[in-house]
């Protein structure tokens, strides 16, 4: 089945390793924990060992800065780096919404790329075509969801196999 789909629409490594992704992997943005963090969260993929720690400064309901640490493959780390850039300046609500869009883009075949303006984050769309790497791309966003839930005092329900943990900053 996967073979048929691939025959119609061949999957290329260039879909996964877009220039933007490799650039963020080589020169990560916002690397390191933030001293002024309001909340932080961390998560890891037990099957492959990728890990992300995220700290988020929130002022008046707005994400004023994000910092990340951790280690792992290019997809997990560049996804986190791109996320910290793209989420800076957003409201909690809008950050959450974008997180939903990205997670849908990675996991839902029917997702319409033109339905939202993803900016640079669109580069992550190719990850969806590499099923074993989807969890690498998702990790940072799961951790963001946890951090934001902590900020609002809500809990997230997550049926993925990525364990995340929230700590107050």
């Amino acid at each position, binding site marked *: 089945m996967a073979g048929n789909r691939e025959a119609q629409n061949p999957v290329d490594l260039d879909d996964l390793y877009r220039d933007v992704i490799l650039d963020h992997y080589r020169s990560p943005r916002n690397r390191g924990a933030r001293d002024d963090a309001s909340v932080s969260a961390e998560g890891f993929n037990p099957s492959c060992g*990728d890990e992300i720690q995220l700290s988020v400064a929130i002022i008046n309901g707005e994400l004023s800065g994000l910092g990340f640490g951790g280690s*792992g493959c290019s997809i997990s780390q560049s996804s986190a780096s791109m996320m910290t850039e793209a989420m800076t300046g957003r409201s909690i609500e809008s950050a959450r919404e974008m997180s939903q869009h990205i997670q849908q883009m990675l996991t839902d075949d029917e997702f319409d790329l033109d339905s939202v303006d993803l900016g640079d984050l669109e580069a992550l769309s190719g990850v969806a075509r590499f099923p074993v790497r989807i969890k*690498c791309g998702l990790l940072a966003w799961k951790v963001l969801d946890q951090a934001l839930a902590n900020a609002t005092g809500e809990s997230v329900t997550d049926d993925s196999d990525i364990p995340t943990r929230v700590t107050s900053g």
Partner: protein
Amino acid sequence: MTTATPLDIAAIREQFPILSREVHGRPLVYLDNAATTQKPQSVIDALAGYYSTMNANIHRGLHTLAEEATTAYEDVRKQVAAFIGAPSHREIVFTRNTTESLNLLAYTLGARLRPGDEIVLTAAEHHSNLVPWQLVTQRTGAVLRFVELNDDQQIDVDTARAAINANTRIVSIVHMSNVLGSIAPVAEIAEMARSVGATMIVDAAQSAPHIPVDVNDLGADYVAFSAHKMLGPTGVGVLWGRRELLADLDPFLGGGEMISVVTREESSWAALPHKFEAGTPNIADVIAFGAALSFLNEVGMDKVAAHDAELTHYAVERLSRLEGLDIYGPADPADRSAVIAFNYRDIHSHDIATILDRSGIAVRAGHHCAQPLMRTLGVPATARASFYLYNERSEVDALVDGLLEAGERFGFERGA
């Protein structure tokens, strides 16, 4: 380039149907044999043949099919005994896999331990020879001790001596590491274990497929391995134990097949090895495992070992010429077999595996179920290429090309 392999690789490859398939439009290069090996047609036929001609439950029916199936199943037990030099087929217990064999031992032997008793493992254990013993320590108050790696990343007699003492009750070690490829001096360590009265267990999951394993030479009390890593089907493991020791162990799982007389209050146990085979076993896969052992016997384990060593030597030589490539394990290729764990440049092993996969090359990436060993080596993960009797030099060459391509994609010049 001439190859020194003693095997007719082309003839061997022809017997593995999967080796003629393509992956992403390229011929499959299967280098993940430490995870599981491919199966020859004879194994596939034996599996289908059992279901099409003699399917029946064993040891209980009085009809012809049951008799044929029972004979076929028990014949494989004899084959396994002969394969590892066991004095009696009654010493061969079929389990699901190495993991279950080791859990059987941890559960039954562990029940005898007291606080302060010591269980000696090594720094290189697969989780399957670590986690069951951790459970034992929680139940009993026994403690774990570890044989460390020496400077050459090997388990040696000296590092073993440092961990074994008068409190040692159990020594359970990996014979051939699934990460380092190194082979531990089991016979010497077994001697040390015996001298302090400890039980000696060997995890032969990687060694039984690649080198001749004779339980008499190992001097061990128990040996565990898996059929699926040696051309056999999944779902079959072996536990060998000395007869008098197995006889003295309590059962692990209770139920049908493993009993002699059952009353409402209590039961007596079946004779060895059935005492340890509760319920309907994996009849079909055990029978197919027999075909795998026949295949290995026909080729000859000495030749398999020589081939794997030769190919590993070649691979170490080619890989170590790549700039930025680190190989883990013993420096001298003569000290390892069939497994090469490595990291290349600063490219994460998952990226390496994805890129190689696009060229049809299957390798493993990650912690290889040996997280503590990864920590000892100081790396979060590695890539791993592992070979078997059907692999050839051209596949090592493909691996090297694939790595150079991965390097280019991550912005390194195509050196070497």
